């Protein structure tokens, strides 16, 4: 019978410049290999777990969330979350370590490890036996010793030694793999990453590189040849204790936005109706009132009220400080957003399509991006920090990945090329797609394209591209939680002083259904603000659908006009002849890679010409359903929904 195995020590590419495979690759390989479970244990980080979680869910592989930590005194351990409680403790611990060090580093001592923490299993990587004794007392009943065998000097002796330690400490041994890559072939890349991390060429990395390529997801057969069956079995015991799943984590909206005696629903309704009265002093059109009711119902069904309240609160602050702000994107399709002052698109004037914004079928959290004057955005950010505190509000991360140029530079350095040579190579980079042209370019630059080093550099650079390099901060995506955010996801220092980011990026947040509020900066708003000040008008005083303005636009007299000032836009304007706001929307949408490459520009312009010539009825549609959807754009699918 083939024994079962669960890998409990595995680093992904989110242990930056250590792990040489993505979480997805690891999960796929572990599933293929028939592993019963895979623990993602990035070093003091959970940045890769959401990706792994999504992939594992798809494949039905059990994913365990954990982290590898090396304490200041050298003690190395892995913590695995067995329950939500343990997960929260782990996030807090990672936050502590990350906040105590510079960006990208962490610092934890024994004192930071909570005693007898619930919901955590601790795996010790044997060093001095005193360490093991300490760990066993810190995690009574939940401490284990890892036996990791990588065809070292004398694996049999190693097993014996660790087992005798285990007997002395009263702990059980489990097999683990110290996995750094999903397949052996990544060894070269892993070596290069190590050299990059150590900031030295490979030739000087010496023994700090791994001696061989055994740190990959090995087949169960291979593992059972190396490890005693009881050690493999113990890995399953531990894995079965880890019942925590990332789907369990629950995000809670901040509560303080709702006054006492109100529910989020009643409060949102109240604010919306107040806004409605303000927007339409002479009474709102029926259609608008209906739309608002429809939207409120949908929001209530999906319990998104606190999200709208949160955005409303931020926008209200900005308004009170006379900071120009503007909701953008699909939120413009919401009458509620208009009433709350988040957007300025009058649902009475435009037909809005709320389902583009929130849809029950898609089950995605709404996305309200709000632009603020770029020079005063910081005031808004500081307001958020002030209102919710640094424990509860943090900016989402952006994973900075290797681009061809940066990858080439680092790989070149690792392989010992001089800076001049790296420069030369990177100049020839635009030819990389074409092998023959590349050979020629390289030869011109004095390289022998057949040279082993050059080949390795090019090959490894292509492998490294796309690998995460470090976490940076999102331009303005805030996550605000009702409790300590660091229980939900670890928070770490950003390079900007006084800024903190969470370890998850936008996609991770979406995958787990966490809401984020985008506080973006927009230079044009600052510009508009100054222009209004110069002419002594307010935003509300700008007349709608001003014919003279459209005339100027048709002449492409649009230098300095947001969105339609580029050369491409200006050359399209005289052909499209915009006459109303919706034409502008189409104008902006049409000069984009999608419609241009999809050859949609000419059909649209032709059909528009037909409409102008009074032959609009000759426009044909494939079906009646399509006509409903595409009538706005004359049967040409310009928008990307």
């Amino acid at each position: 019978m083939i024994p079962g195995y669960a890998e409990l020590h595995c680093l992904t590419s989110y242990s930056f410049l250590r792990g040489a495979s993505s979480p997805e690759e690891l999960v796929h390989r572990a599933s293929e290999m028939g592993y019963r479970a895979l623990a993602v244990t990035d070093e003091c980080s959970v940045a890769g777990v959401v990706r792994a979680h999504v992939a594992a869910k798809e494949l039905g592989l059990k994913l365990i969330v954990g982290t590898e930590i090396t304490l200041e005194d050298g003690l190395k351990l892995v913590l695995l979350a067995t329950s939500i409680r343990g997960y929260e403790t782990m996030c807090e611990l990672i936050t502590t370590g990350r906040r105590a060090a510079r960006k990208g580093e962490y610092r934890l001592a024994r004192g930071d490890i909570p005693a007898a923490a619930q919901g955590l299993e601790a795996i010790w990587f044997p060093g001095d036996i005193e360490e093991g004794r300490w760990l066993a007392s810190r995690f009574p009943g939940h401490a284990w010793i890892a036996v990791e065998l990588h065809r070292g000097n004398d694996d049999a002796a190693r097993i014996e030694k660790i087992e005798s330690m285990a007997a002395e400490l009263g702990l059980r041994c489990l097999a683990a793999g110290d996995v750094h890559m999903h397949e052996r072939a990544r060894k070269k890349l892993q070596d290069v990453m190590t050299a990059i991390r150590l900031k030295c060429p490979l030739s000087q990395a010496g023994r700090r590189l791994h001696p061989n390529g055994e740190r990959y997801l090995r087949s169960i057969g291979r593992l059972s040849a190396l490890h005693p069956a009881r050690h493999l079995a113990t890995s399953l015991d531990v894995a079965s204790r880890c019942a925590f799943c990332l789907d369990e984590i629950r995000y809670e909206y901040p509560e303080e936005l709702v006054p006492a005696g109100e529910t989020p629903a009643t409060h949102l309704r109240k604010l919306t109706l107040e806004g409605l009265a303000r927007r339409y002093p002479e009474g709102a059109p029926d259609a608008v009132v209906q739309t608002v009711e429809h939207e409120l119902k949908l929001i209530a069904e999906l319990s998104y009220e606190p999200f709208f309240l949160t955005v409303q609160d931020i926008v209200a602050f900005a308004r009170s400080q006379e900071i120009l702000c503007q909701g953008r994107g699909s939120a413009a399709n919401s009458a509620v957003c208009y009433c709350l002052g988040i957007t300025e698109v009058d649902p009475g004037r435009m037909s809005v399509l709320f389902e583009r914004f929130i849809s029950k079928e898609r089950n995605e959290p709404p996305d309200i991006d709000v632009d603020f004057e770029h020079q005063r955005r910081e005031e808004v950010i500081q307001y958020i920090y002030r209102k919710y505190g640094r424990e509860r509000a943090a900016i989402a991360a952006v994973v900075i990945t290797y681009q061809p140029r940066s990858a080439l530079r680092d790989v070149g350095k690792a392989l010992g090329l001089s800076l001049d040579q790296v420069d030369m190579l990177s100049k020839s980079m635009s030819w990389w797609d074409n092998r023959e042209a590349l050979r020629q370019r390289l030869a011109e630059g004095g390289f022998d394209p057949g040279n082993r080093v050059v080949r390795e550099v090019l090959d490894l650079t292509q492998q490294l591209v796309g690998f995460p390099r470090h976490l940076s901060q999102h331009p303005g995506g805030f996550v605000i939680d009702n409790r300590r955010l660091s229980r939900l996801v670890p928070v770490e220092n950003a390079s900007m002083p006084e800024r903190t980011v969470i370890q998850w990026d936008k996609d991770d947040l979406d995958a787990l259904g966490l809401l984020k509020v985008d506080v973006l900066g927009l230079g044009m708003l600052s510009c508009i603000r100054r222009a209004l000040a110069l002419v002594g008008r307010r935003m509300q005083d700008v007349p709608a659908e001003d014919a003279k303005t459209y005339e100027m636009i048709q002449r492409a007299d649009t230098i300095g006009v947001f969105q339609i000032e580029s050369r491409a836009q200006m050359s399209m304007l005289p052909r499209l002849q915009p006459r109303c706001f919706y034409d502008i929307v189409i104008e902006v949408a049409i000069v984009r890679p999608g419609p241009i490459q999809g050859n949609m520009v000419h059909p649209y312009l032709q059909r528009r010409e037909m409409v102008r010539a009074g032959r609009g009825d000759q426009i044909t549609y494939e079906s009646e359903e399509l006509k409903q959807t595409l009538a706005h754009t004359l049967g040409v699918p310009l928008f990307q929904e």
Partner: protein
Amino acid sequence: MLWVALELPSLPLQLVERAGVSREPVVICEGPEQRPVVICANASASSAGVREGQAVAAAKALVGELRVVPRDPAAEREALQGLAAWAGQFTPMACLDGQGIALEIEPSLKLFSGHARLCSAIRRGIRHLGFHAVAGIAPTPLAARLFARAEARGLHVRSCIDLAGLRERVADLPLFLLDWPARTLAHLTDLGVLRMRDMLELPMEGVARRFGPEIAIHLGRLMGTIADPREPYSPPPRFRARLELPAEADGVEALLFPLRRMLAEMEGALRGRGAGVQRLMLWLEHGRKARTRVEMEFASPERESDFILAIAREKLGRLTLPAATLALDLRAEALLPYMPRESTWLPGAREQAIGRERLIERLSARLGRDRVFGIAVGDDHRPDRSWSPVQPGHSGVATNPAAPAARPVWLLNRPHRLITRDDIPSHQGELSFIAGPERIESGWWDGAEVRRDYYVAANARGETYWIFREHRGDQGWYLHGVFA
């Protein structure tokens, strides 16, 4: 105070014969070029009837094959300076004095257990340098010089160690031993004043008036009634010695004897300054500007002549000389503080360490410096690169202290292909595995990639080897190292 005066009779001749006594008749000449006069003659020349004061032409008439060497006062002075520097090991107060040197030894008496032992140590040392000297001991330097000259003339004088007995001891000595002007001595002879006794009985005021105050002062200094301060010779901060060989030396062995004398002189000079040398240059001069250079370098400052000579012997033994050697020139340009080697009752690590240093020096002298090296652990997984040769005594740059375990001490220069039967490797019998495999996959970046599984394996005779299975190329088995 107690002084030792060393007199080197016939110093010019000694210099010529220092590197070895020549059998041919040799004389030293001095005087106007038209009529040079013999001032010293060696034993061979003397036996042929050559005498001091003879004209060189007359001497040549007596001896057919006479080698005539003009006197070289500069070389004499250098020799005396070298001697004074060498004597620095016995006393800090060593000065040049006439045709010899004078040493004030009272402060050193305790160290050398009395003047008798000290003097015999000095005499023995001088003999090793290749010089012949006679010594006089007296409370004043002038009296000591007087005794030494008397000794040189074959007069037996008992040394005098306190001023009170000095008058009695000098009483019988003839006045001509003093460096007084010939006119003064002739005058005194005419007066019937021939010995010191007569001289000392004369009233000093009268002597001063009649023969000049310097004569009175000289007497006063000799007798210790007038102070006679001396300036100690302070040698330059380097060592240089040159020695001309008495005859052309063809082989290397013939060089060792004169070299020993030079090294003994250097050792004394170095002792006097508490110094040693780490780098030493020996030039063998072959005439017509042809020279051979022999360089000696030590791990730490050295000065013991026996040791240095042994090193030099090894070095010289490996040389092929282009021509016969005429002279030796020994130079040490930098003198370094010398740490004396302690000797204890029981040899410990320290003594062994010193022994090792000596061994390394001797080995590198014999085999060549580039062939003797230490081994340092290298920072690389590949066994061929996990060690590197370093200068003996250096540990190399320890970049990573965690060195791998179970590595054989002796690694083959090139792995040796093993024969296999049924894929089981054998070497002096079938091999069985003791440990392994240890997989090493590294070095793909520099063209010397290694992908191997290493095993510790032993044959029936218990010989333990480090073998590997190649994963690139031929997939074969190789022997890479031997465990002790």
